[in-house]
Each structure stands twice: as C-alpha cells, then as structure tokens.
C-alpha cells in the first residue's frame, strides 16, 4: 500500500489527468479511505483554480506610451 506521503506526491499528476491506470486505481482506493488526503487534493485543486482567477496585471501607462512611440518608429521604417 502506498503511504499518504506517496499519495500526495501523485495528486498533481492525478488532477492533471496524467496518471497511469495502476497508479490511478491505487489512488482512488486510497482517497476512498483517507480523508486527510482527500482534503489535500481539494486544497490543491482550489489552489490551482484560484490562480486561474487572478486578474491580469495592468500594463503601466508609461510602458504603454513607450510601446506606442516605438510602434510609430517601426511604422516609419517599413
């Protein structure tokens, strides 16, 4: 039987859908009986999910202005 420690090391591959069948089955079996590992998996998923909801950083106004200035230079050279 894999230990909780080994199971947690597999949870990202599991969440990414990259686990082979044998590991996948062992993991299912373990998760079915182990609530701390289930909590760990939920939290890993919540973590990854929250990262996907972070707002994009703003492009600072001076960088934006500089880029537009460079654009004009590029256009003139063409």
């Amino acid at each position: 039987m894999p230990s909780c420690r080994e199971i947690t090391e597999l949870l990202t591959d599991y969440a990414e859908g990259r686990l082979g069948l044998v590991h996948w089955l062992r993991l299912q079996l373990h998760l079915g009986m182990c609530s701390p590992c289930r909590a760990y998996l939920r939290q890993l998923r919540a973590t990854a999910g929250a990262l996907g909801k972070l707002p994009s950083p703003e492009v600072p106004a001076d960088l934006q202005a500089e880029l537009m200035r460079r654009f004009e230079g590029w256009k003139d050279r063409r």
Partner: protein
Amino acid sequence: MGPPAYQGAAADERALVARLRAGDRQAFADLIARHGGSLLRLATAIVRNRSSAEEVVQEAWLAALEGIDGFEGRAALRTWLFQIVANKARTRLRRDGRSVPFSALSSPDDGEDHAPDSDRFDGNGAWKDPPGRWSEEDPERLAQGVETRAAIERAIADLPAAQRAVITLRDVEGLEAEEICSLLDLTVANQRVLLHRARARVRLALEKHLAGGR
C-alpha cells in the same frame, strides 16, 4: 478544425494581424490591451525583477513587430508572443549573469527545494500533521479576497524560478503542459514535478493564511 468559437477567434486574430501589418495603430493598442498584462506577468515570473520585466516586454513587443510578417498563424498569436517573451527573458537572465541556463534549474530538486510538506508525515509516510480545514475553498472567492490574493501572489514570487515560470503558465495563464515544455525547454516529467512542487508550496501558503496562522 476546432469548434466554431475557436474558428471565430482565429479569424478575428488574422484580421488583427493584417491590420497590424498595414500599420494600424489601433490594432497594436488592441493587441497590448489583450495580451500585454499576461506577457508582463510571464516576464516577471522569469526575471522576477519588475523593471527588468518591463524592459524585456518592451524588447519582445518590438521583436514581435519586426517579426510580424513572418508570423504564419500556425500557432495562436498568444503562443507566439509568449515564446518571444520567454526567449527574451531567458536571454536577459543569462546576460545579467544571474542564471545558470534555465534548464539547469529544472531538475526535480531545483537546487533549493524539497517537497514542501515533507515534515508533515511520520517515518512511515502517514500524516502526522494533516491539512487543516480551510475557511474557504471556492477558487473564485479565494482569488477575490484581497488578503488571500496577496498571500497567493507572495507565495508565487517566493518560488524558485523554474517553478514560478511553470505555475504561472499552467495555472495562471492556462497553457497546456506541452506548450509550456516547448516554451521553457523542459521535459514533460520535469514540468510536472515543477508544477507539483509549486502548487504544494502555494497550497501551504494558503493553508497558513486560511487556517489563521496555525
């Protein structure tokens, strides 16, 4: 051929590229509005320092303009732009002498890191200090909380470089694993180890935050 939504987006992108080639200023502004924040985030993830990241992004946008005639539309424009930024950022790291090549940072041990939760288990690998309950597990609400968001962003900033780049591309920007491997010159196996380590560390930071400093 992808689903209609993708085809629509691709057609829209082709039109934008055509306008850019014709020297349409608004097309460039639209492109910056659409991808500028993500590119800045990627550059920051690789070079860490914000002002270097802005320089990298500036160089990358200029390179994109110079190279736009050669853009063939085989990859999405976003992927093409990400590739330019990733290359420029890594060149920058090398030039500043701050870095062994990026690939050397990507061994599973990452030079400076071990499994972040290793002290939570006993000698048999059973939980000794199991994960605490979180006051919130909904991703949307986690990302909305100002303090939680700050804790997440701090945790990402503190990651080793390769982990930071991988988690930014995979979880923050939502790129496929294969794309990330080609952007960062990683093997599939390394990419997954780096992703796991990074998620585990950010999870740990969130746990500390959400369990009220256990």
